[in-house]
């Protein structure tokens, strides 16, 4: 069954056991994103710790793909330098636009490689990208970019 290539075990595992799913105190930036066609929602919060590394909070509701993607995102970018997080984000976005033909790099994407099958289902790409869009937007609001250090309000 084709649908099983979409729902790889790693995705199901993140969906059923989301990693680090909670909100943080006094985020420097926060973004709420919705997928208006299906009602998926995710909120991502960011701030920087004393070493200039990302602290991530998130919560949401929606389909297995959007919620597993949020969990993977949190796992991949929590504690990363903003520039490194940006590399992961860009690799993930690229993977989603690969129409399923990519050979994703586990070194960069970690569990994100499990989403390769999602790229074959155009309607689901938006679900997978939702938390990553929220991350980008939350960082922008916090003034955190790949090139600058950013400021932590906490």
């Amino acid at each position: 069954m084709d649908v099983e290539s979409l729902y790889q075990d790693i995705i199901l595992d993140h969906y059923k056991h989301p990693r680090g799913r909670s909100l943080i105190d006094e985020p420097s930036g926060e973004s709420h994103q919705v997928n208006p066609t299906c009602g998926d929602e995710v909120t991502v919060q960011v701030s920087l710790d004393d070493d200039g590394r990302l602290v991530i909070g998130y919560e949401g509701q929606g389909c297995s793909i959007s919620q597993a993607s949020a969990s993977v995102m949190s796992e991949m970018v929590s504690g990363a330098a903003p520039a490194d997080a940006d590399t992961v984000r860009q690799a993930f976005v690229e993977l989603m636009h690969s129409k399923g033909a990519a050979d994703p790099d586990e070194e960069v994407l970690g569990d994100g490689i499990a989403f390769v099958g999602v790229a074959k289902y155009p309607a689901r790409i938006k679900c997978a990208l939702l938390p990553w869009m929220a991350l980008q937007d939350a960082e922008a609001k916090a003034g955190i970019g790949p090139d600058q250090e950013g400021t932590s309000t906490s």
Partner: protein
Amino acid sequence: MLLPLDVDRIRKDFPILQRTVRGEKPLVYLDSAATSQKPTSVLDAERAFYETANAGVHRGAHQLAEEATDAYESARRRIAGFVGAETDDIVFTKNATESLNLVAYAFSNATAKAAHGAEVDPRFVLAPGDSIVVTQMEHHANLVPWQEVCAKTGATLRWIGVSDDGRLELDDLDSLIDDTTRVVSVVHQSNILGTVNPVRRIMDRAHAVGALGVVDACQSIPHAPVDVSALGADLVGWSGHKMLGPTGIGMLWGRPEVLAAMPPFITGGSMIETVFMEHSTYAAPPKRFEAGSPMVAQAVGLAAAVDYLTELGMDRVEAHEHALTGYALERLADLRGVRIIGPMTNEDRGGAVSFVVEGLHPHDVGQFLDDRGVAVRVGHHCAWPTCRRFGVPATTRLSTYVYNDTSDIDVAIEGILAAQNFFGV
């Protein structure tokens, strides 16, 4: 189960139903509430028009222009006849959304013109203190335009609530629709819940307080015999693409006196009477509301669709879908963890059946159905406040039409079971 329509024969008229999807699976199309499929006769009619009579209508002095105009106006006559209307009381629009906006803009445009001293029919002039009444089960197409009218005029939006079993709460109808109410706009058959509403009663109440009454008949006219003048409404809007016709054409029926009192919506060519540099005067309806080059081929195609439906018999179409809906409700009710969003009983109910599966998001349910070739809709179905009313972010909806039979429902049920099994819920 013996169904009123001969589905095997009907399916042969729909080329798209012969294709397979997701590998070699036969297409099981259960998404007709979103848009219906088209029989060969509709496709042929459009093609024949382009091959033999294509020209600009209502302009030009040549034979083709005459034949094109004739095809367009004959289509209007047949479409009007299908809903028991007079030909000139049918306005062609792009879709139901445009029909409803045409009505909403009559109010905001009249209000704006009146503020500058223009002479307009006072029934369309709104002010703070006035109210507009809709229901909690409207498609966004019959909600957002009224929110906009309120924002532009200061009028207040009210709505008739929905009960847990998906019916309108009409006990306080007389206090909701009161002497501040200027327009009442309600859906005849809900696209998300399937509920068929007692629009006559609501329209009568609207008229009792001097309000105008509007009905969104997008989901009723394709599926049951509807005489628009018997709904008790002043204006009725619906789409062609949900009733076997092409995309790009919708209808607005209006009582002639009401249409005549309405200011135009989209303006430009074809809708004028005289034009000077300073000002213009407008044609009588329906032309006043049909600016620009019209959708002639679509009208011709839709006329072929109503011929097809008429041949099947709308009474039989209704009976067929009633039987199928009853079957779907029974089978879904038997499934563990499945909750129907909308009436559980088959009275005053159409063939759009929404449900949620405990522990599964509708998008994931839809994916498993798609994997078996079953096309359903998942999401909020452009009725987001209705989903919120039921505390669900989205639903899975199966919706039937003349080419469906019980085996289609059976495949869908198997898909739901497979999804539950896969996710271990």
